[in-house]
């Protein structure tokens, strides 16, 4: 079998057998796992964020424990999820003027103009997003550009922790994305179907007219 490795997680010395993720390693000594865990490997929930220093390196990096392999000599420290006072409060339904989305964003996130370009957010992001550029685009009113940058954000809040100006970049990005969609996305097919339903033109017959099988077979061959 593979050689066992030693690493330190939240101050506990562990010996484990690779390959396994940092999250799997964290339970190897019987410690209860009740936080900093969610999707367990998909890397989409952002719950298992932690600080990691690899053996022989000075730099500490932020990673998601579920998608990072345990290595010999690693020092790992999980970062508690926090629910602090939320300074940036808005109701998406309260934004009604699509000409003034950028103003609405600026009202809620005035700190976005104060970015000092320290790059802390970029270094913190475990997904490698260009967070700082996203903040700059949002502040400049380039909403589509900012929305695009935050498209794959998992809301782990590491950039919010890292930002000395309290910009809350991921929440800023999410507000931009939400506002652009809520005020801009109006698909014509959805509109047409909703109108049909409203007019009673989409009845559902419970008797189960099961006559689409032939059509489905034909469609599959095509």
């Amino acid at each position: 079998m593979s050689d066992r490795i030693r690493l330190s997680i939240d101050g506990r010395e562990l010996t484990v057998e690779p390959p396994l993720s940092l999250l799997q390693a964290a339970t190897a000594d019987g410690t209860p796992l009740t936080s900093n865990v969610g999707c367990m490997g998909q890397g989409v929930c952002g719950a298992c964020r932690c600080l990691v220093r690899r053996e022989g390196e000075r730099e500490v990096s932020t990673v998601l424990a579920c998608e990072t392999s345990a290595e010999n000599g690693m020092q790992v420290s999980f970062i508690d999820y926090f629910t602090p006072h939320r300074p940036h409060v808005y109701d998406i339904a309260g934004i009604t003027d699509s000409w003034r989305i950028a103003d609405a964003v600026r009202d809620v996130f005035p700190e976005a103009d104060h970015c000092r370009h320290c790059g802390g957010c970029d270094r913190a992001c475990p997904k490698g997003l260009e967070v700082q550029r996203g903040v700059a685009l949002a502040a400049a009113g380039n909403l589509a550009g900012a929305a695009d940058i935050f498209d794959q954000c998992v809301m782990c809040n590491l950039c919010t922790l890292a930002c000395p100006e309290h910009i809350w970049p991921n929440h800023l990005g999410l507000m931009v994305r939400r506002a652009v969609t809520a005020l801009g996305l109006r698909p014509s097919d959805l509109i047409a179907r909703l109108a049909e339903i409203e007019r009673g033109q989409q009845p559902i017959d419970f008797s189960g007219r099961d006559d689409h099988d032939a059509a489905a077979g034909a469609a599959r061959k095509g």
Partner: protein
Amino acid sequence: MISAIAFEQAMASLVRDADPVLRPDPLSREELLEAYHPDAGPEARVSLRVGPNRGDPCHPALARVVEGDALIGDVDLAAIAPMSTDVLVVGGGGAGAAAALSARAAGAEVVVAAKLRIGDSNTVMAEGGIQAAVGEDDSLQRHFDDTMRGGHHAADPALVARLAGDGPDVVRWLIGLGVDFDLAEGAAPGARLMRKRAGGTTAARILSHRDFTGLEIMRVLREAVELDRGVTVLNRSPAIELLSDEYGRCAGAVLYDLEHRVFKLVRAGAVILATGGAGRLHLTGFATSNHYGATADGLALAYRIGARLREVDSFQYHPTGVAHPPHLAGGLISEAVRSVGARLINGLGERFIDELAPRDVVTAAILRECAQGRGVGRDGSVGVFLDTPGLLKERPQLLDKQLVSLKHLAHRCGVDPCVDPLLVYPTLHYQNGGVAIDGNGATSVEGLYCAGEVAGGVHGRNRLMGNALLDIFVFGRRAGAAAAGQAGTPLAHGRIGLGHVQRWRRELTRAGVTGGSLSPVLYPAYGNFELRSHMAAGGKG
């Protein structure tokens, strides 16, 4: 050990140039399911011995959970002052968030109790998309018919009609909250939604955001809930028992506060269980695609207070879980990959099933290949190939837009999906049945609602891709509104406690069910959690 074809040999058999021909199948789909699906066979179910479903079939491992004894008794609740709210939502996934928002919209005060943290759920992991019949070539009727047929006509038609009927409005609601959906080609004004095919459907009906639709939806819903001052979110607060009044109605819940290691009582006009499924019980020994918290907590709580269950012997094993490397086993490869054209290939280089047949059929087909020695073996794992190179050689651009998650997953598996196929094996994915509900999520117990995967009757005995994301919002919203309507009833004043637990214990004794397990389970075995020792210990954990 079942024999399998060695990886290197299987790779050599993989046809590189032409689309492989589908091998003719001597078995009908029904015969295939009967012979190879994990739900079939004599070991797949036992009869429940106690409770409203006494005599009904249930998965053996799940039966131990729903027939379990409570974790607490009256003595644990002495001298704890309850907090009060109109609506208590248990569970912080998509159904819980939708329920909370719609209860708020109806004017209720809401408490959301999450075992992990709001948003940590199967919802955030959903990749493929959400069904809603918006296409011109589609209709609510087709959606209804496909869902009924896909579920082998075991679903409640009234629930399915509501599922299909609410679909377009759910999408409008999500867009209104700021959830983005991909558009088909064309200029923005007048553009149509991009629609994908799901297995077992007669029209392209899956709406999506890239291949991380669940993340796009859940991050928006979590933000909306957290920004709502009328919602109190209690993270790391699993519900460990419901509270009942003297008439047997549900009147709140007992939470365990993991931070302070104490119990918390929440009295509520109505309770909505949105606790999700059971994947982390690893039924029948399968790996799972589910998130860490999916341990059937809601089923145990609802059953003990007297709510009826249905189809709790029926589970979905998603055809394409990761089979290799072993430490990532069970991770999901979205049906979107097959939906855009990827083939399944056995160790002989054969295509053995229509990849877009219903999920249970594809799963049974893969299990047959592996059982009959035509699987691919690698480092002790067995599976079949998902032929991503065959798909991507014509359309490499898919990886950067539509299949972002696949790219990410393949990278962690150490595979270049343009060069090497992924090794896949079915993974425990979804609980088809659950607590019986009506069209508003109401259970057979007054004051208790269920929404999402914990509820049953919407998908029959097999769920179609994209119908789970729709289900959680259709019934989450309905349950939230209905529960808000109950606020202010006399429930807010009478005596509440664990009367139903005392009744349950008498029933267990009468039926001779002793020495069983305790439930809810809360965490999988590798979570190293035991309530009493956790309460006794100090520090973080």
